[in-house]
């Protein structure tokens, strides 16, 4: 089938008719395996299959179906995997973006979980002991498909699925994935000790750069790793653990003494995981985290990278799995593993602390670790007579974000030298995932259902769009300035926002909100004005052109009440922006800020993206059985899994079974 025909036929290339009844496929429907390859783009996969580079995906397609799959509005991982989990549209589970906003303060907030601090403290000496411990509440609503399986005593293992942190209550084996924070509660902040003064002074956010002073014996005496804030003391500060580094320049090695351990490390090498105890009450209470050290440079200068502090799966400070011992059990079998939801350190490359080579080294090691853990779970699955296994791989997604500019000559951040050296790696990531499938195809019994799928595709991200600048220029967003000279940020210039006269504002990677009376704290738009205003803004948004080349920057704008169930619509943006190919929300806009220029070049290694019009970045679907729909949707997955196991009643879902 030609590429054009593949796109025209919505991508379905099946050996048999895709409209066949499922009865013609697998007979003994007791086991199913789903491999989730985050970000696998169907057109890239199609081209590579045609070139013979993905033989195992080709084999799978020939035994059943390869199709494009509808993703969610917007095509962001937490939203799309939320739909996969609940078999529903976002309105039913309340996730609409990585970044939501607090209608009280208008500030951007993380969407996946809410932290309730500990309270009702009793003071003992300098300590305050909470009687009511803090907790983290998951914000993904809806009933997960594995809960339906549990009700029928069908065993399921769900490995690192996004939008399940903290893991929802279940007797199934689940472990949290994307959304899981580091020990500080952030998405992951690395630390760098550098003897390059200029580098140590670099103005980046978040900033954990330190100048490394080595004494005359080449010892870094006063290194520190910051831990969580100690809430058990008055005006609690961040806990810290000190370390020393003894450098042997001649042999290009170093010894790191930290928390009673001695770690030997050579230049360009990573250490294994090092567990660290951050003291809360000396000798009584501590929190365990873990880091990897990366001795980036010894000879020319001193550069020591320390990974974000992960929550240890052996001794988790917060709930990482159900049952709680599952994370520990896995760590005991396979060794300590990354627990942060987005484990490859894209920030380190974005901020040029890493070069491409260093990022790749780390990415491949994350992938290898996933492969090892998959081996453990897959073997367990093979030994069972029945059951369900979902296993998530995130390296393709993170890799494409960071490597896109290497293969896009029209990208403003295209680097010809790096492209020559590492340009092959984007496709190599696809081949690495294909080889995992190859191992499965060689060992999996034929009567096991198999799906390989992604949550969205991928595209280039060349130009950044600030929607708040547009809203300001059009008079919908009021600021205390006549013109925007320098960036106006919600965090630094809150007083500049004239909420009492603002009708609309943008927060999040795809979100635009009306300033609704009764919903926002200083809302002015009435229910009566709402629809007309939404349509007026929608019409204007679709006319925004890139001043540099005349391209429309937004190809579709979705009024959410027309697309989503009403259950949790209160959290949703009022319009979700479907950016055109090559465009995406700017960082400033995503955080509620406004800049002088509305459209600017994306000068960053984060050069591939998918937070655009979902029609431009469909997901991928492969199965070893036929399906009954020409274009499946990601919300069809959960009803399909349940039907496979004989469960037909799925009252919380509005997707359709594909079988």
């Amino acid at each position, binding site marked *: 089938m030609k590429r054009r025909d593949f796109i025209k036929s919505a991508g379905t290339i099946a050996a048999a008719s895709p409209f066949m009844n499922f009865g013609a496929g697998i007979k003994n429907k007791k086991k199913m395996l789903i491999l989730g390859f985050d970000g696998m783009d169907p057109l890239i996969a199609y081209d590579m299959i045609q070139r013979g580079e993905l033989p195992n995906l080709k084999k799978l397609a020939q035994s059943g179906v390869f199709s494009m799959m509808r993703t969610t509005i917007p095509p962001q991982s937490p939203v799309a995997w939320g739909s996969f989990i609940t078999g529903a549209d976002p309105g039913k589970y309340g996730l609409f973006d*990585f*970044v939501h906003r607090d209608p009280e*303060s208008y*500030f*951007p*907030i*993380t969407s996946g979980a809410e932290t309730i*601090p500990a*309270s*009702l*403290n*009793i*003071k003992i000496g300098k300590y*305050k002991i909470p*009687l009511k411990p803090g907790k983290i509440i998951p914000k993904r609503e809806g009933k997960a498909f594995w809960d339906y399986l549990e009700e029928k005593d069908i065993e399921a293992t769900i490995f690192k699925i996004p939008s399940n942190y903290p893991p929802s209550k279940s007797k199934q084996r689940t472990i949290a994935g994307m959304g899981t*924070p*580091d020990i*500080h*509660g*952030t*998405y*992951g*902040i690395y630390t760098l000790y550098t003897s390059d003064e200029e580098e140590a002074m670099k103005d980046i*956010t*978040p900033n954990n750069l330190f100048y490394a002073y080595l004494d005359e014996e080449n010892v870094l005496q006063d290194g520190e790793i910051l831990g969580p804030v100690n809430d058990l003391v008055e005006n609690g500060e961040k806990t810290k653990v000190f370390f020393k580094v003894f450098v042997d320049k001649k042999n290009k090695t170093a010894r790191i003494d930290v928390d009673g351990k001695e770690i030997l490390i050579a230049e360009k090498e990573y250490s294994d995981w090092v567990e660290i105890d951050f003291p809360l009450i000396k000798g009584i209470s501590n929190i365990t985290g873990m880091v990897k050290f990366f001795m980036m440079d010894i000879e020319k200068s001193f550069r020591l990278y320390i990974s*974000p502090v992960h929550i240890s799966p052996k001794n988790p400070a917060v709930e990482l799995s159900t049952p709680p011992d599952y994370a520990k059990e896995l760590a005991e079998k396979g060794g300590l593993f990354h627990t942060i939801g*987005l484990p490859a350190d*894209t*920030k380190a490359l*974005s901020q040029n602390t890493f070069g491409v080579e260093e990022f790749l080294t780390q990415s491949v090691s994350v992938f290898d670790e996933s492969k090892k853990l998959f081996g453990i779970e897959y073997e367990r699955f093979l030994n069972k007579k029945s059951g369900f296994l979902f296993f998530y791989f995130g390296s393709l997604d*993170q890799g494409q*974000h960071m490597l896109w500019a290497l293969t896009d000559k029209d990208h403003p951040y295209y680097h010809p030298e790096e492209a020559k050296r590492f340009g092959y790696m984007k496709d190599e990531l696809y081949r690495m995932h294909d080889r995992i499938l190859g191992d499965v195809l060689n060992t999996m019994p034929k009567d096991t259902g198999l799906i390989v799928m992604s949550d969205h595709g991928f595209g280039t991200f060349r130009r950044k769009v600030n929607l708040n600048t547009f809203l300001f220029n059009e008079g919908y967003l009021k600021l205390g300035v006549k013109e925007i000279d320098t960036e106006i940020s919600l*965090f630094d210039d809150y007083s500049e926002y004239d909420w009492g006269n603002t009708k609309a504002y943008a927060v999040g*990677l795809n979100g635009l909100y009306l300033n609704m009376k009764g919903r926002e704290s200083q809302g002015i738009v009435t229910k009566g004005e709402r629809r007309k205003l939404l349509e007026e803004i929608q019409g204007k948004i679709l006319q925004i052109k890139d001043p540099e080349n005349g391209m429309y920057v937004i190809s579709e704008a979705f009024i959410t009440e027309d697309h989503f169930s009403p259950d949790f619509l209160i959290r949703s943006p009022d319009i979700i922006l479907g950016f055109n190919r090559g465009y995406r929300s700017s*960082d400033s806009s*995503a*955080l509620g800020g406004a800049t002088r220029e509305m459209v600017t070049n994306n000068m*960053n290694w*984060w050069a591939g*993206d998918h*937070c655009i019009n979902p029609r431009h970045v469909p997901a991928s679907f492969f199965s070893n059985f036929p399906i009954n729909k020409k274009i499946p949707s990601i919300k069809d997955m959960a009803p399909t899994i349940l039907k496979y196991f004989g469960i037909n009643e799925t009252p919380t879902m509005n997707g359709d079974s594909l079988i």
Partner: protein
Amino acid sequence: MAKKVKLSNENSQKADEIIAFHGYSSLEELIGNLIDSEYEKIKSDDDKDEQAEKLSGLGYIS
């Protein structure tokens, strides 16, 4: 400087129940704790910084 606080009978009874339920050692300790927690709520600048730090770690936001 220490301040005296007058409580209504109703609030005084409620306070006694809270003290008994949570095991506070005195009314002063309970009030001190309530002031602490209210004070924390208005330390919005710290919260903002923390929220900014959380979000800026997201790879999607450079």
